[in-house]
């Protein structure tokens, strides 16, 4: 997890384009200025960043399904639940599945598990738009490579 770059996913473990699911993992850094304020003497991964991690996981699934032709932008969370505290150093197991692919939007269900136990989950809606610029797409492809996004899911991108 590179919080300073807002990169919440360390590695895509697998993506199933037929089953429309993705699994990823991320380790919460042991040190970050965020934990100095959230909270002093009781460091916790902020809930908004856990939601963002689920959104990024879902987003990579959508990017894979659209073969890098559309960029998903976060539009809504529903039924977001933060069930347990997440602390520095913990390994997050992230997953997402497509609930619906609409015209210009997609809805996913995403979850974070800690050692197999459900820690967070939400239903997330995204607007899908063409990449705003070629540079944007190139930058996303670089991030994809950095997080081990499967080459097969990028082959037609």
């Amino acid at each position: 997890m590179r919080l300073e770059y807002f990169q919440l996913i360390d590695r895509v473990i697998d993506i199933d384009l037929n089953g429309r699911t993705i699994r990823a993992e991320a380790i919460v850094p042991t040190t970050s200025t965020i934990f100095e304020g959230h909270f002093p003497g009781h460091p916790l991964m902020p809930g908004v960043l856990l939601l963002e991690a689920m959104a990024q996981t879902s987003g990579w699934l959508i990017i894979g399904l659209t073969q890098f032709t559309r960029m998903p932008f976060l539009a809504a969370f529903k039924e977001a639940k933060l069930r347990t505290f997440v602390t520095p150093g913990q390994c997050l197991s992230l997953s997402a599945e497509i609930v619906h692919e609409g015209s210009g939007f997609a809805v996913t269900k995403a979850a974070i598990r800690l050692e197999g136990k459900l820690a967070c989950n939400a239903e997330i809606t995204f607007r899908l738009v063409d990449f705003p610029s070629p540079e944007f797409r190139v930058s996303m492809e670089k991030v994809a490579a950095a997080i081990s996004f499967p080459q097969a899911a990028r082959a037609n991108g």
Partner: protein
Amino acid sequence: MSSTCDTVFNIISETCDIPRETIKPESHAINDLGIDSLDFLDVAFAIDKTFGIKMPIEQWTQEVNEGRATTDQYFVLQNLCARIDELVAAKKA
């Protein structure tokens, strides 16, 4: 009123928190009911799920932006319901 309209009006009422009695066949979803783009995504999601279709919203928007259609054709509710009926019929065909 058609059963499609009845279902769509209920979806709009529940999704957008608009009193059911204010929703009319001649209502324009955006201009009269004030449904914004985010709420319309929720409405579209519910309609797609309920009717088992995929409303081609991007195509409709493009037609409007290019001047080949008016928003009334797709966003006045009786017209929207007619489009939904067409999509359902096309799926069954």
